[in-house]
């Protein structure tokens, strides 16, 4: 292809990948709100355009290395802030994940959100969300990335609180917004610090070791930690992880999008994006590894006791994100990004499958779903089985490959603690995933619902044509995702070539293929233990349906209350914010500001009162004063 043509073409494709969702958002908000079908059509068309452009970009990504197109946006002194696109393997890979998942979720939502009064609004927000995330993945500078980062945060706030008439939904939206904002403050400070020290925020420059070498190692560590603060908030890492389970208040497709490709993936993506910069500081990398590990284990334990199926998947997301951060923190760029992509596929599938039951049964409780005959829905059942197996790392599925990659990276660390933690995670993950699957697949007894009711709920009855249409709208994305989940793992080598091989070796460098043979067997052992325990407690014919962790009351309380993290925050809020800061500001307000104004007024009044003594109201005194002054003036002029 002729290079000039190719460049124009690439720029055009990048524009058509990012702009249409924003346009569709604007058009829906301004014109199309009264027409739900038109809104949905617009939104889906826009995101389809993005998918097509992303595929084209991926196909025509030449061998000549990363393209970047930058126009100047702001100039202040010697600082130039560019705006444009950076097209390299990382961003293109993320772009296509986001576009595909967003498209599938939007198609699925046609069924899930059918008849919702806010249908147009829902699609407007979905467009905004997709547009923000697509643009984020193509951002060439930290400033532009930060702008879209915040837009992603905003649109997830809007979607989590989508059913705003529910108080818990608005609360959850607020919590998500505020908690991620805490991290974003760190990120912003980090960006400013980098800007002050390097005078440049281009991602390509940041990732250049010779540029970063201008900063002292301590400063690099500090900057990396500050930027990681933003990742902690966005990707729900410890200690800011409690907003994500609460975000389940939104519609299920939103959870699917939020948990797989967009909101929480943005954090891990930022880490991958700045991976060479972050890995300049070994101290910071150890912190990342620690936080990832803590998050992974904590969230996995929370997932083993919850009965709300969406919450189980939410904890699982937190846990898997921790696992991704572990992989990146262990120094393996490819392991992190590969698990990010497989996780996006199987987590989206898990949520969308659960969404089918939630849509038909209107309950989130997995035992309720089981009791009402959840397994009649064949496609979601198979999809969930596949996704859960992939999540657990069962061999032929994609999750197995990415998990092995991360475990392999962990095994290369000198400290065996990380690998142990990873293996503990490998035990918990199949346990909680198959706890949910077995509960629904092998219900203890199907509730004695009347057959007519069952007929109504069953998707395969011809009597309910409209419902069946809805069902298929929801089922097709499930099938596509299931194919991705099954197939993605087999492209590991080519993906690795694409992402870390080739001309962009500066991003990470290829991992030496030093497979630990024993690792495979050990991790399989842990997975099988988890699976077996889940089968023993939930799967077999006369299983107790009460997990071992639910039997031990203190453990159950600890896990169900999220290790008392929320209570801790509430206490912290009470002690630090309400008692200390609020008290101080109240006292400042009452005593310093109000008191100051009062004192000023009192002094003025008192001074007036003192001066008013001069005013006796007697004409004689005034006359005397006038003459005294005149006499003094006369003396003054006489002697001067």
């Amino acid at each position, binding site marked *: 292809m002729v290079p000039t043509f190719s460049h124009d073409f690439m720029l055009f494709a990048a524009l058509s990948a990012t702009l249409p969702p924003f346009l569709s958002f604007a058009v829906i908000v301004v014109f199309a709100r009264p027409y739900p079908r038109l809104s949905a059509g617009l939104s889906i068309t826009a995101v389809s355009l993005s998918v097509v452009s992303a595929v084209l970009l991926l196909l025509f990504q030449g061998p000549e290395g990363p393209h970047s197109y930058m126009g100047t946006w702001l100039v202040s002194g010697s600082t130039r802030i560019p705006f444009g696109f950076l097209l390299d393997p990382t961003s293109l890979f993320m772009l296509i994940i986001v576009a595909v998942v967003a498209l599938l979720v939007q198609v699925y939502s046609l069924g899930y959100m059918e008849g919702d009064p806010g249908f147009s609004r829902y699609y407007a927000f979905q467009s905004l969300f997709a547009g923000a995330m697509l643009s984020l993945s193509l951002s060439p500078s930290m400033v532009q990335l930060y702008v879209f980062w915040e837009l992603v945060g905003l649109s997830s706030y809007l979607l989590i609180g989508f059913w705003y008439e529910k108080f818990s939904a608005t609360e959850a939206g607020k919590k998500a917004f505020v908690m991620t904002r805490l991290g974003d403050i760190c990120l912003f400070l980090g960006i400013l610090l980098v800007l002050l020290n390097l005078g440049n925020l281009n991602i390509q420059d940041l990732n250049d070791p010779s540029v970063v070498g201008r900063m002292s190692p301590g400063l690099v560590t500090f900057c990396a930690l500050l930027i990681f603060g933003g990742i902690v908030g966005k990707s729900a890492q410890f200690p800011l992880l409690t907003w994500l389970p609460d975000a389940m208040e939104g519609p299920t497709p939103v959870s699917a999008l939020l948990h797989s490709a967009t909101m929480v993936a943005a954090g891990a993506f930022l880490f991958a994006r700045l991976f060479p910069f972050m890995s300049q500081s070994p101290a910071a990398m150890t912190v990342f590894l620690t936080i990832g590990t803590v998050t992974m284990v904590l969230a996995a334990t929370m997932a083993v006791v919850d009965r709300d199926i969406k919450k189980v998947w939410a904890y699982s997301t937190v846990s898997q994100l921790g696992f991704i951060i572990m992989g990146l923190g262990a120094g393996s760029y490819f392991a992190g990004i590969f698990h990010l992509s497989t996780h996006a596929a199987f987590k989206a599938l898990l949520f969308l499958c659960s969404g089918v039951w939630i849509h038909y049964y209107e309950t989130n409780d997995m035992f309720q779903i089981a009791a009402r005959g959840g397994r009649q829905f064949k496609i979601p059942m198979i999809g969930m089985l596949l996704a859960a197996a992939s999540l657990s790392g069962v061999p032929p599925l994609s999750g197995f490959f990415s998990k092995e990659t991360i475990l392999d990276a962990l095994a290369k660390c000198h400290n065996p603690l990380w690998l142990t933690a990873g293996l503990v995670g490998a035990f918990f993950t199949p346990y909680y995933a198959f706890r949910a699957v077995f509960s629904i697949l092998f219900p203890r007894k199907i509730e004695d619902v009347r057959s007519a009711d069952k007929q109504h709920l069953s998707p395969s009855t011809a009597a309910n044509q409209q419902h069946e249409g809805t069902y298929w709208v929801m089922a097709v994305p499930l099938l596509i995702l299931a194919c991705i989940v099954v197939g993605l793992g087999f492209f590991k080598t080519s993906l690795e070539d694409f992402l870390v091989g080739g001309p962009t070796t500066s991003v990470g460098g290829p991992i030496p293929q030093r497979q630990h043979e024993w690792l495979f067997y050990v991790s399989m052992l842990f997975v099988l233990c988890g699976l077996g325990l889940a089968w023993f407690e939930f799967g077999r014919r006369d299983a107790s349906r009460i997990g071992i962790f639910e039997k031990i009351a203190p453990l159950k309380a600890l896990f169900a209350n999220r290790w008392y993290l929320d209570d801790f925050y509430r206490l912290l809020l009470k002690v630090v914010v309400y008692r200390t800061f609020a008290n101080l500001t109240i006292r400042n307000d009452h005593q310093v500001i109000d008191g100051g104004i009062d004192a000023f007024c009192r002094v003025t009044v008192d001074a007036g009162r003192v001066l*008013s003594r001069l*005013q*006796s*109201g*007697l*004409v*004689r005194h005034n*006359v*005397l004063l006038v*003459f005294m002054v005149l006499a003094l003036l006369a003396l003054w002029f006489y002697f001067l």
Partner: protein
Amino acid sequence: MIVPYSHVLILAAVIFFLGLVCVIARRNLIMTLIGIEVMMNGAAIAFIASGLRWHQLEGQAFVLFIIGVAAVEVSVGLAIIIGAYRRSGSADADTYNSLKW
């Protein structure tokens, strides 16, 4: 000039201060008015003496104006005093203190 100029000025000053003391010390409004007249006359004497001293006619001319102004002032002042007396029932200047805080 038989009488020295300075003596006349001292006389004028004495009369002026007598009038001033009358204005300040007396409480009756009419006495205040009389005090002002006395002060004006003191000033008039100083003008006459200065006119004689420098052989200028303007000094005496000013005195005519002063006498005219004094006459006008007495008539207007008395009218105000009568008005004030009717309103407050007293010609005592110290009772007019309603503007005091």
